[in-house]
């Protein structure tokens, strides 16, 4: 297993280097960071030249990339134009916010999706199967912004009915809340409910279909029939022999989705006013914050590569044949 991990890690590094190069080059090619200065007749050439030197813009592109990449490896992604803060600090803060939102949704989503997929596969064409299939397609075809808005409205109505605030619609916590640990925990959980539910419903819709299809395939294999013939209980057949193999494709999809969604559950964050990675990208593009956009894209690339790597590891754990290949 250890050599398998090393092999996978070795493959991730060149991918990251290539990704970082494209991130830098594409953002650099998207426009002149000093365009506004140059267009302003009140700014002297000397000032513009000084700024060019400061940003290494007077160097060839490859040399600029080398400086940027060297600094990035040391955790220095430059200074954000819009926040007047180091890019890495803003990224860490926003990534933390998105992580909190996505982590819970993914864990619950996986558990629910696997459960629904397995039961629907085992009880094929039952009422549960038809019902879960119907709901999966309903949620899968719903636009996220619409589902989020409906859940938000439903949450507010339920709060009105209960006479107290259970569901929150804005942000990740109540500012300035005077409450103990349990109070703070409840408050944060209340803020998580609606956005998490949005992500869970959308994720479960897709993942449960993968799980159902994968489980159906496995249930028709010879080794499952053999397991049953050996006289194993149904739970042992399903849990130990079928599910473990049926999880492999789902793990891949979940890992990739999780990596992508960490780059910003853009719509969900927007609707519930969470200041996470998705909102950060929009703000940075609007404010032409080049260092921030470069940092954001690099962080996204790292995350996707990291979760690909994690998926590979988990893949190898679930299916020993893969790590020997």
């Amino acid at each position, binding site marked *: 297993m250890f050599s398998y991990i090393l092999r996978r890690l070795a493959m991730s590094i060149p991918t990251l280097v290539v990704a970082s190069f494209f991130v830098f080059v594409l953002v650099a090619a998207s426009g002149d960071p000093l365009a*506004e200065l140059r*267009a*302003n007749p*009140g700014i*002297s050439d*000397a*000032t513009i030249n000084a700024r060019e030197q400061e940003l290494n813009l007077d160097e060839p592109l490859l040399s600029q990339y080398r400086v940027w990449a060297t600094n990035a490896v040391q955790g220095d992604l430059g200074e954000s134009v819009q*926040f*007047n803060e180091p890019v890495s600090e803003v990224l*860490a*803060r926003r990534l*933390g*916010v998105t*992580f*909190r*939102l996505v*982590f*819970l949704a993914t*864990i*619950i989503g996986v*558990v629910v999706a696997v459960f629904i997929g397995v039961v629907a596969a085992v009880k094929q064409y039952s009422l549960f199967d038809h019902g879960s299939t119907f709901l999966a397609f309903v949620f899968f075809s719903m636009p996220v912004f619409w589902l989020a808005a409906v859940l*938000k*409205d439903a*949450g*507010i109505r339920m*709060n009105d009915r209960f006479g107290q*605030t259970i*569901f*929150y*619609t*804005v*942000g*990740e*916590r*109540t*500012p*300035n809340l*005077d409450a103990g640990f349990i109070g703070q*925990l409840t408050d*944060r*959980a209340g803020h*998580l409910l609606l956005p*998490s539910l949005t992500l869970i419903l959308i994720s479960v819709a897709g993942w449960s279909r993968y799980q159902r299809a994968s489980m159906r395939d496995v249930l028709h294999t010879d080794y499952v029939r053999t397991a049953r013939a050996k006289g194993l*209980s149904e*739970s*042992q057949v399903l*849990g130990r022999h079928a599910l473990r193999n049926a999880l492999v494709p789902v793990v891949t999809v979940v890992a990739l989705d999780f990596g992508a969604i960490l780059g910003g559950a853009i719509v969900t964050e*927007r*609707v519930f*006013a969470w*200041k996470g990675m998705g909102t950060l990208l929009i703000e940075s593009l*609007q404010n032409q914050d080049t260092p921030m956009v470069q940092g954001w894209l690099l962080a996204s690339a790292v995350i996707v590569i990291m979760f690909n790597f994690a998926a590979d590891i988990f893949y190898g754990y679930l299916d020993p044949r893969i790590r020997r290949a």
Partner: protein
Amino acid sequence: MRSDRALHWRIPALLCVMALVLAACGGGDDDDDTSSTDETDTQGITIAAEQELTNFNQNTSADNLLWGAMIVRLVWPQMYFQTPDFKLEPGFMADGPAEVVTEDPFTVRWKINPDAVWSDGTPVSSDDLEYYWQSCNGAVDEGEPVDPEDPEATAVDCVSTDGYDQVTQFTKVDEKTAEAVFSGPIAEFDSLFSNPIPPAHIARAEGEDAWGTAFIDSPIVSAGPYTLGEYVKGESLTLERNEEFYGEPANLETITFRFIEEPGQMVDALRNGEVDLIYPQPQTDTIPQVEEIPDVASTISFGPTWEHLTFNFANTALADAAVRQAILLGTNRVELVDILMKPFSEEATVLNNRIFMNGNDGYQNNAGDVEEYDIDAANAVLDDAGWVEGSDGIREKDGERLALRIITTGGNTLREDTEELLQSQYAELGIELTIDNRPGSDAFDVIFGAEETAADWDIALFAWVGTVTPAISSAPVYGTGQGNNPGGYTNPEVDTVFAEAIAELDQTRRFELLNEADAMMWAPTELPDIPLYQKPTHLAYLDKYANIVDNTTSEGFTWNAEQWEIVE
């Protein structure tokens, strides 16, 4: 076997619990400058703020945001502030109004509240006023004028140098008294120092760039009714009552600003009890939604922000006075107000003055004969001027089609709707109007010339904000060669009248002169622009709060926040 099965269910259950705890416990990584309060919700107010301040010293051109001013004015003191009825009153910092000591040379004296003190114990003093003047007089350093021969010499970036740049000598008479000698009489001297004043002793200790950089993250000290409490960037900012305040202590113990951009989110947050007050950009759909929320007071006011069409005199067709006159007569301003403004309030009305707002002292209808929409008269003016209808229905003259472009801030629904209405109105005049918007504030780069394509526009739809200093504020908009006159309008007689108004100390006479200048610009041969209407503001809050009154001046609705209280 039994334990095996149990384990299968325990693992996901454990994962879920861990996820919940981790997700809920996270955060706090950005709370390092927090100072949590002991308040409960009922002793404070939570406000949905559309913008986050970018600098506590919001007196720079880049940081001068309405929301920044509304927050900082509760922390840093002002000599004077604007009341909702457009009057200037002494603020916490002042000991009475500014006085003219001598008229020749024109010398003004300011007296500072003898009790005023910063929260670190330093007295609020004439040094604070001197530092403000030094930063806003348009000079490089300590009163030294900007050297036109030296392109590297740039003045401190101050939001407005109007008035301060006329001071030839500033004297700290004593700790609580300052005097300034002006180059000539300046009527609106009493508006100087009406922004939140930064602490000079902190700024001077921070060095020469302090004006723009020392207060980005914190005001450092307070001399207002509130001090900075918890500030989580991107999320919220809480002000706590300044228990050491030298004036009347504030009623509410905390004021929390939650940064929420979308008007729809603000309404939901108010409905769900997550905020107590909202001040969104008025939208026809959000107003009825707010009115349905129980126990909420909702007010619509028409402030000093007024929409208008500015003409670019560089366009040869628009340089023809007949075309501008025809456009004015053919612009159905009443229809625009009925369709765009009346859904907000039945009180909405057409604006017929460029300098004074409806309902304020000095306002009078200067539009005269050209006030009413008259499509026949408009067509007759164009016919007489030789603009004849072409084969495609668009008028032509000497081979030039009467095709104009209109530019505004793309994405602003109200303005985009205005443009579409104008398109249909001008079609009846035989004028082709093409919409050529730029996203957001990019439009101003084109209109005001910070882009290569500067001046590449014909008609610009945007807003000016009326102020309590109409002479100082309006002269740069209509004066020959002035920076705020992007259309290039020029009339030496108008320039002269504005110059007289700026120097006229008698308010009645000054207002007469300003109305005279406005009336001159309504003449058919002039028309640098067409005023349309004042934009509404929408303030809604839980009705358990008392004394909340909108202030549509640049002061904002927090102008009396120290007096807000809970009445139930």
